[in-house]
């Protein structure tokens, strides 16, 4: 008899997702549909909480999926993202057609992410990614009459298909070279190969390209700003805070566990890609005039920061590696709230008929004081100003690089920290500029009416950002637990 309890949260979410369109059909009420989805998400969240605090880990389906501190933490992050996306959507999609399908797709995408978080081998990993990708393609295309949205969706679909093909090719090469799909088994097989198999080099290139598209690292980032701009803004929030994290989990599992034996071949390359990603994202963000594009480029930059974890987490000393990985997890957690929160604010202001050009934000503090304040918190947190969450996580993340650079032969990691810190300083310019527009410049005086649903969704993010910033300890401990569980065989 198979014990299904570990996969229950994901299964339940998927089940509710399939029921939600029926709820819409029967009640004919968008609100009821949204609330049914919320109930599903919260129930799933409670189940994961239970696992997280039990602290045990358990594998099912011949060790293809495993729930442990790592996957539970990420499931919680994904469910929180889904939670505030759905809350914000209560108003955002109100009165549109097919809301039942909208909520169902959001929840299916989240279920896919949860599968990725639990995956223990290449097959389940790929399946999870595809569930999420297919759902998000349709979500991006949700406003099908909107030209920009249709263009974004087409682009996203083509690029997404290409990236799936590339990563599947990479996965099949790994399987071909090692005969294994389980990450741990792949790791020992690769270690036993002694020396470099050219097939593996090709596999690394394919996987970096395939997953690189998903997380939008240089040079695979060009789709992200267009898609983020064209998608419905609540979905943009989900792409930036959910899907992107999923891509990182995939990279972590394949590289840090599967390919650790040949780290000499990729760690320097990933380090360079990380620096290129953060620099390009920040520099291009400076010249953006659309707030959504600016946030999209800032997302690219943040991906660069998180990417420095890969070379850190494979250094020889397990304590250091764990510290570095915990920093990466922590930054992914805070980023989910601050970037998602920023997009939700943009969505809320857009429904109040405010444009998405930076100039439209002039004098916002008079028109929507709470939203302006929340946006300021999010932007300062993204810039890493204490005492906000973004500072706490950058603190752990960047210090990990310096910690690792103390080890013999890993001195070059110091440059990752230096590059990240210089980039943080650059990024302050474009974040502070938006704050300047909102508070220092005068604009129209009329008040904007923000729907309460957005208020709640934004409040979730603001509270999280301040709470994590002021009392980081429990969150850091959770991330360290997760990092520990990640390395367990």
């Amino acid at each position, binding site marked *: 008899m198979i014990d299904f309890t570990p996969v229950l949260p994901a299964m339940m979410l998927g089940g509710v997702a399939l029921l939600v369109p029926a709820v819409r059909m029967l009640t004919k009420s968008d609100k009821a549909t949204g609330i049914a989805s919320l109930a599903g998400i919260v129930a799933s969240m409670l189940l994961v909480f239970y696992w997280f605090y039990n602290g045990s880990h358990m594998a099912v389906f011949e060790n293809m999926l495993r729930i442990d501190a790592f996957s539970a933490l990420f499931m919680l992050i994904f469910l929180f993202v889904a939670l505030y996306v759905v809350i914000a959507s209560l108003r955002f999609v109100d009165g549109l057609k097919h809301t039942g399908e909208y909520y169902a797709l959001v929840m299916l995408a989240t279920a896919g992410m949860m599968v990725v978080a639990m995956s223990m081998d290449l097959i389940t990993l790929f399946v999870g990614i595809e569930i999420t990708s297919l759902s998000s393609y349709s979500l991006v295309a949700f406003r099908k009459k909107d030209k920009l949205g249709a263009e974004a969706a087409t682009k996203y679909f083509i690029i997404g298909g290409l990236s799936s093909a590339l990563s599947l090719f990479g996965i099949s090469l790994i399987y071909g070279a090692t005969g294994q799909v389980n990450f741990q088994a792949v790791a020992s097989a690769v270690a036993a190969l002694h020396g470099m198999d050219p097939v593996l080099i090709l596999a690394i290139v394919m996987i970096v390209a395939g997953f690189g598209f998903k997380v939008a690292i240089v040079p695979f980032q060009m789709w992200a700003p267009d898609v983020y701009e064209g998608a419905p803004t609540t979905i943009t929030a989900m792409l930036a805070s959910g899907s992107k994290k999923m891509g990182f989990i995939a990279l972590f599992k394949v590289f840090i566990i599967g390919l650790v034996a040949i780290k000499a071949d990729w760690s320097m390359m990933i380090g360079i890609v990380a620096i290129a990603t953060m620099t390009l994202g920040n520099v291009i963000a400076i010249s953006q005039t659309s707030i959504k594009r600016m946030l999209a480029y800032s997302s690219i930059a943040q991906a660069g920061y998180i990417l420095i974890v890969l070379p850190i987490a494979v250094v020889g000393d397990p304590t250091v590696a764990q510290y570095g990985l915990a920093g990466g997890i922590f930054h992914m957690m805070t980023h989910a709230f601050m970037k998602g929160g920023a997009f939700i604010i943009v969505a809320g202001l857009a429904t109040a008929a405010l444009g998405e050009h930076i100039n439209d934000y002039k004098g916002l503090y008079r028109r929507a004081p709470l939203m302006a304040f929340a946006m300021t918190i999010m932007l300062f947190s993204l810039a890493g100003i204490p005492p906000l969450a973004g500072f706490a996580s950058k603190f752990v993340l960047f210090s990990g690089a*310096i910690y690792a650079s103390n080890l013999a032969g890993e001195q070059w990691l110091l440059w990752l920290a230096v590059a990240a810190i*210089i980039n943080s*300083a650059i990024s302050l310019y474009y974040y502070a500029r938006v704050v300047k527009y909102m*508070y*220092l410049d005068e604009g129209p005086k009329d008040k904007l009416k923000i729907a309460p649903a957005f208020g709640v969704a934004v409040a979730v993010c603001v509270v999280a950002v301040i709470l994590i910033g002021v009392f*980081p300890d429990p969150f850091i*401990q959770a991330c360290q637990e997760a990092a520990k569980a990640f390395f367990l065989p």
Partner: protein
Amino acid sequence: MLEGIPILTLLILLPLIGAIVTLLSGKDPKVAKSLALVFSGITLIVSLVLLLSFNLSAGGIFGQNYQFTEQYQWAKSLGISWIVGVDGISAPMVFLTALLCFLAILFSWDVKDRTKQYMGLMLVLEVGVMGVFMSLDYFMFYVFWEIVLIPMFFLIGIWGGPRREYAAIKFFIYTHIASLVMLLAIFAMYFQANLGTFDMRAIQAAGSLFPNGFQMGIFLALFFGFGVKMPIVPFHTWLPDAHVEAPTAGSVLLAGLLLKMGAYGIIRIAMPTLPQGASGWQWLLLCIAILSILYGAFASLAQKDLKKMVAFSSISHMGMVLLGLATLGTIGIAAGSFQMFSHGLITAVLFMVCGVVQHKAGTREMTKLGGLAAKAPWLATFMMIGFMASLGLPGLVGFAAEFTIFFATWQTWNYLLLIPIISVAITAAYYIWAMQRTIFGPLTDKIDVSHLRDVNWFEAAPLAALCAAIILFGLYPSLIFDFMRPAASGLAGLLGVI
């Protein structure tokens, strides 16, 4: 008498609560103003109690023996704690912070635009500066160090002059970059000490064993981080912009407190933790100090805008602080710390006077002013006291500080003193010339002076209080020196110089 009362945490919490209450108060600007004044007033009283109950005779190693210490666990997983404590260097700075914030709030009584936010931000600024002067944990220190930037960014950006937005962003980014360099250095020391704690005292105890090359490198990084804030030439360019555009009370706190944070960081962190770095870079400290002193003085001489002149004079006077510290000896360090305190008082008067001139006459261009003494005798009096104190007139607080710094310089480098001492003549020149062009001589006809009035009560009260303090501490410098000397001698002992 203060057993069991967390007085230092209280000094941080009071303005914080004040800020929240002020920001949440209703639409009436009067209420906001009064709330801010009351909270900063209580903070001032508490800080005075702190100063009076400070035990002057408690000795001990510098950087290990603090008074009123409190310690609470904050983030155990990283070794971060809430540790506050004061010693002879920081206790007077805490008092200065409370004093200047209170007076600056009083001085801003006529702020009309967005009064509530203005007052709230002033109190947030006080929280940040207080925290910097009493943190004994690197994480905490950095958090407060950065918190200071945010209210100042808004104060300059919203209530500032015509080019306020440029100045605000430049200030924010310039000092943020410096902070990040400092953060890198903090990480490096944390992992080098490898104690799993960000406690300054523990890292300092381990610091003397850091390898020489490490000390040299990290000292340079810290010196850059703190120096930009001081500011040192050539990293001073944010200062004139920020000062000229900032509202008067903002300038008062910027020059009176924020610049001191840089010098304080060198005393509290860079020198005791990395003693070999300090002695290795002594020549650099000296060169930069002299450069700042002379550059600041000459630049002041060239200014036409009264406020810009005062801003450049700050660079010169903060260079004086650095000169004192560069001697690495007891007298030099004590005098440098005293100069921090004295410059805080004096510069507050100078910026307030500039603010009054701008307010009453509508311009700060010295070429357009003249003969204001006839119309505004009190303004002229305060201006004279401030300028005289700043140029080092004996009997006023500036003289006590600068004379001692020159004395220490002579002890350490003998005839080298001749170079920085040139600045005394230049300083006297620009101040006296400025007075001639603004308050003395025939009444100006370039601006409409028919409505020119003397200072209001809310401007006169802080100015009078500060002038009284300038005279008091000028006549009895030992009131403050007694705090600083034991700590300074402890630091000099760590550096191997007596």
